[in-house]
């Protein structure tokens, strides 16, 4: 799944999310293709991240969610951060970025 066109503000959120690593795969959640959508509203001071996991019941689920909230809160302390899991479409390895695909080949 490709992220819909992001504004510069939302791209900033996406870059921050690159700090969140899936501890089992050792790759950040953006290059892994887990982030499905970002909404950043400067007026209401809200950030909503829609993301998935490599599989439902992934043991690292809440760790990844906590990390995502934590890094976003550190970068955007004035914003209300919401991270929500979505399960459709189901994640497939093809959703990873080029960097992600390279990581799979070498790790």
């Amino acid at each position, binding site marked *: 799944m490709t992220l819909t066109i992001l504004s510069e503000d939302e791209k900033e959120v996406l870059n921050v999310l690159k700090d969140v690593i899936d501890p089992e795969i050792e790759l950040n959640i953006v290059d892994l293709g887990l982030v499905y959508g970002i909404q950043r509203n400067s007026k209401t001071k809200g950030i909503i991240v829609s993301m998935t996991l490599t599989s439902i*019941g992934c043991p690292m689920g809440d760790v990844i969610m906590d990390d995502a909230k934590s890094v976003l809160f550190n970068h955007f302390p004035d914003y209300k951060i919401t991270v929500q899991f979505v399960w459709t479409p189901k994640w497939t390895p093809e959703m990873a970025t080029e960097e992600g695909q390279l990581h799979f080949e070498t790790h």
Partner: protein
Amino acid sequence: MINLQSQSSPSKNIIVPHFVIGSINWTITILFLLLNSDLLLGHHFNHKLIAITHLITLGWISTVIFGAIYQLIPVIFQTTLYSENLAKASFVSLQIGTWVFFFSFWYSNTSIPLVISAIILAISLLIFGINILKTILLSNLKAIERIFIFSSIIWLIFTGIIGTILAINLSFPFLSISHLELLKVHAHFGIIGWFSQLIIGVSIVLFPMFLLSHNQSKSPLKITLLFSNFGLIIGFCSIVLFSNYLLITAFISGVIALLPYLHFILFTYLKRIKKKVDIGMKKSLFSFIWISIALIVSFQIFLNFSEINQWQINLYITLFLLGFISSLIMGQTFKTLPFIIWLSNYKSTPSHSNKILPKDLYSHTILTWQYFSYSIGLILVAFGIFKLNNPILIIGFSLLLIAVLLYVLNIFKIITRKNLSK
């Protein structure tokens, strides 16, 4: 709303003792095997060999599996463990029962302590079974892995009941059918029904998850489920009805059951996205070579049914317990235990700081040496049984002992690590 796994995990104080005591029991077992290796050159119905077999199956395999299952069930079924108190009760009774049972058999004492220990063990297995069945029933997940695990628990309870009947029969004979024949039923209910079905149910979830191999259909595994259960029931009937035809049917069913599962594992491996396989997974995958060889040996036993060589039976049991199941557990330990400790100790440290990952909790060098020492040791043990050669067995068990000591060392390294940074 989905339950996130670590929020619903049982306390690590429930799980970690299973790994610690299980691994210590495992070391003692290998030490006993090293000091009494000639037992594997004789008949399998030997009181010392039965004692050691139960130390392997209960003190080592079941103990670690119980601990791992308490952690994995919330992952697979997105639920919480039904009762931590039942888990504690099951753990304590399993250890007491196993050791009293072991020494009763070791010293060939078939009096009251043996019967009491068998009853304690049956209660322990029953408590575990109820706890897991109740946990599974809390989940709405409709998946074949649920049926495999459900089915394995039923066989565990059956094998526990039959084991207790056999122990009572040794002290106070009352059975009309052969003790040795019922022992085969007990063993197969335990090895195929309990261990194998549980391993299948768990591995078809974990292996695709760890290897990032998501596109395997689980539908053919219905054949595995159907035929493994059918084979076990028919196998039991063949003993009760003294029917060789039914025995042939049971054997063929077992082979048919295994094939779709081996196919699933092979294709999960071949179609994995993550190209580099870590040592824990390598060791786990290597265990499937042992089950394949065990299958070949079982063919040979079956084809020479009228003239079974004792070494074939000993080799078959060794390949299954020390080869397949133990290798798999020793590999998967490093995919589960570090994660349990990591979740408990380190997860609150944000990942953008230099935080350690689950894989940083153990020594990969030690694990690599463990892997090679165990593999070579097991090849030598198998060869020693085949050639009826005790010196080869001693060398093989010495290497296994080194491997198991390295395994224990790494476990203690994981559970005692204190610092939070790399």
